[in-house]
């Protein structure tokens, strides 16, 4: 109190209209303006590139969402098809007869060329239809089958008919045959459900993502089942129980470092430990899931610790004050309150893990599998490795399928991130 009376301000009065001062104000405003401009430009650039990527993917990928089909009538003669031995029946001959019936004026060579319009898988679709309904034997089956990839491309306008005949995969006679089918109203291009419901195939018109979906599903299940309990357990121990000392600092720094380790390193680790040492099945979602769990653990631990830290200490004190043990404080109060944050972090970590490719390549999850894995112990592919396989395939049909698969993967990612945002909004608590 006595000090205040003595400390009088001896400075001259500040001149608020001084030109130098006004100039400084202007400079400050200009700096602020340019900062804003810089921000808007950066955001526009980021959005622009995102839009560019999505539109280019859509431009090449949208054609894979339809598939050209042809309606054919297949005479199922009892001569070639034996109900007792469906799988040994002469389905090739059956298909030949069907093609011959469609093109009565073509000779043997012409029929052979025209038969190429149908997908190689058509005979199996006919076979499966007969297995489903054996009464068809002796009758005629009308069925929609996919056309083979070159004709699918042509129907989608991707083959230039003016190209010299020897420079394209479809010859003039085949084009003629196809056009006659189109004129007869047999050609259609429905939505390509096969893209989602078929497993992989050498033939683009038959290849689908079912195997990749199931593989990715198993991966996420294994990853979630391992990473969530371990991650939450580690975070609870570090945040609520561990003494604060050099050791816990060291662990904390290393968890943060682990989050920044390139995923391919985890792949090598998995190769050495899970495959070579433990001898777990190669290329299986079990191994893939374990690897992804290692990758997502640091993220989950960091997110969980942040969520636990955000629970106000007053809640802990309140619970301790009525005689709850440390463990009861955590499991009755702190963890339930932190759960939305934990789930948000976990979903984001999973969304990150779902797109990991490199570690899966190292443990052999890029195998060519024409059937979906039945258990997490079978070899499988995942969405990113399926994209990798398709991008590597020479057939034209796989170009658009690769883009389509990327769009599917992106859709899943957006959905997972949306779920995380929704969870955060829905359960976020303000103190």
């Amino acid at each position, binding site marked *: 109190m006595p000090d205040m009376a003595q400390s009088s301000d001896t400075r001259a009065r500040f001149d608020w209209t001084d030109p130098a001062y006004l100039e400084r104000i202007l400079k400050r405003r200009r700096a602020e303006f340019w900062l804003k401009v810089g921000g808007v430009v950066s955001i526009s650039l980021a959005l622009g590139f995102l839009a560019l990527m999505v539109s280019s993917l859509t431009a090449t990928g949208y054609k894979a969402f339809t598939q050209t089909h042809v309606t054919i009538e297949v005479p199922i003669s009892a001569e070639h098809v034996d109900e007792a031995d469906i799988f040994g029946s002469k389905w090739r001959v059956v298909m030949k007869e069907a093609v011959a019936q469609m093109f009565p004026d073509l000779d043997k060579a012409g029929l052979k060329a025209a038969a190429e319009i149908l997908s190689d898988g058509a005979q199996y679709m006919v076979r499966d239809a007969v297995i489903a309904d054996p009464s068809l034997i002796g009758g005629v089956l009308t069925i929609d089958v996919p056309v083979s990839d070159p004709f699918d491309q042509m129907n989608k306008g991707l083959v230039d008919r003016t190209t010299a005949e020897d420079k394209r995969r479809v010859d003039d006679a085949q084009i003629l045959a196809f056009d006659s089918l189109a004129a007869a109203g047999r050609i259609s291009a429905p939505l390509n459900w096969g893209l989602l419901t078929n497993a992989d195939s050498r033939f683009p018109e038959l290849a689908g993502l079912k195997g990749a979906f199931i593989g990715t599903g198993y991966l996420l299940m294994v990853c979630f089942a391992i990473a969530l309990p371990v991650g939450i357990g580690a975070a609870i121990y570090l945040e609520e129980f561990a003494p604060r000392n050099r050791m816990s600092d060291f662990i904390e720094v290393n968890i943060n470092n682990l989050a920044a380790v390139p995923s391919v390193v985890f792949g090598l680790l998995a190769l050495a430990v899970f495959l070579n040492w433990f001898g777990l099945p190669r290329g299986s979602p079990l191994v893939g899931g374990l690897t992804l769990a290692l990758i997502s653990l640091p993220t989950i631990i960091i997110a969980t610790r942040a969520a636990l830290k955000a629970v106000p200490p007053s809640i802990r004190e*309140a619970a301790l004050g009525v*005689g709850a043990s440390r463990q009861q404080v955590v499991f009755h109060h702190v963890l339930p309150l932190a759960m939305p944050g934990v789930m948000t972090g976990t979903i984001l970590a999973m969304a990150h893990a779902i797109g990991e490719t490199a570690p899966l390549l190292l443990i052999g999850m890029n195998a060519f599998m024409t059937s979906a894995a039945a258990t997490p112990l079978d070899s499988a592919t995942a969405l990113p490795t399926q994209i990798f396989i398709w991008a590597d395939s020479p057939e034209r049909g796989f170009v658009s399928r690769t883009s389509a698969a990327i769009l599917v993967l992106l859709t899943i990612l957006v959905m997972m991130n949306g779920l995380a945002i929704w969870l955060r909004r829905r359960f976020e608590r303000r103190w």
Partner: protein
Amino acid sequence: MKDIRMESRVDSTVNKIEARHVQVHYGTTHAIKDVNVDIRDRAVTAFIGPSGCGKSTFLRCLNRMNDTIATCRVEGSIRMEGQDIYDKSVDPVQLRAKVGMVFQKPNPFPKSIYDNVAYGPRIHGMTSSKAELDQIVETSLRRAALWGEVKDRLNAPGTGLSGGQQQRLCIARSIATSPEVLLMDEPCSALDPIATAQVEELIDELRADFSVVIVTHSMQQAARVSQHTAFFHLGSLVEYGQTGQIFTNPKDPRTESYITGKIG
């Protein structure tokens, strides 16, 4: 001393807690210096003193709340009914059920009013049936003078109540485990005057059953609710005595300076 008439009197002279030579260190800071104090049973004891004088720290020694701070070290002896509460055989978790605590800021659990009160009895397995638990919840809320206001919305969240109601809910929560001592760390500092008056009235009623220790910044509050007052300054207990004597006839010059507003 211990004849029947004395036992039944509200102003008991029986010591509930006896603290001797208590020292508290936070790392290198010596927060509490050689404090000796007797907390009387069924009476309100107020701890007053300027900010940072150690009164809250000492309060937190009485239910071993300081154990949760890793760097905190408590020396000396604190005996509750003859039993050293820092003895190895004493479970701090059980002790905290016997020594309830109410905090500065109302901190109800983000659960229903019912669950807030029922939490303590539940974790200690104090009831065997739902009806019994209902009874405890009702009794506790009644004793906290909150039953009338919340009896129709026991399932509403406790955090939806007003500040004063929340604090009374916290009092109900801490008396639900039927503690013997009730510690209150500036229970009214976050409340408006009307809510403060309600809580003070409640404290006066609670002293019939509990021995209450209250830390307060407000000397008027200490004068209104307490029978004994301890004045802390810079980690030491400067003066301890009957509230009337402390406020009207302090023996230590520092106490006099504080209650007349010269320090603090």
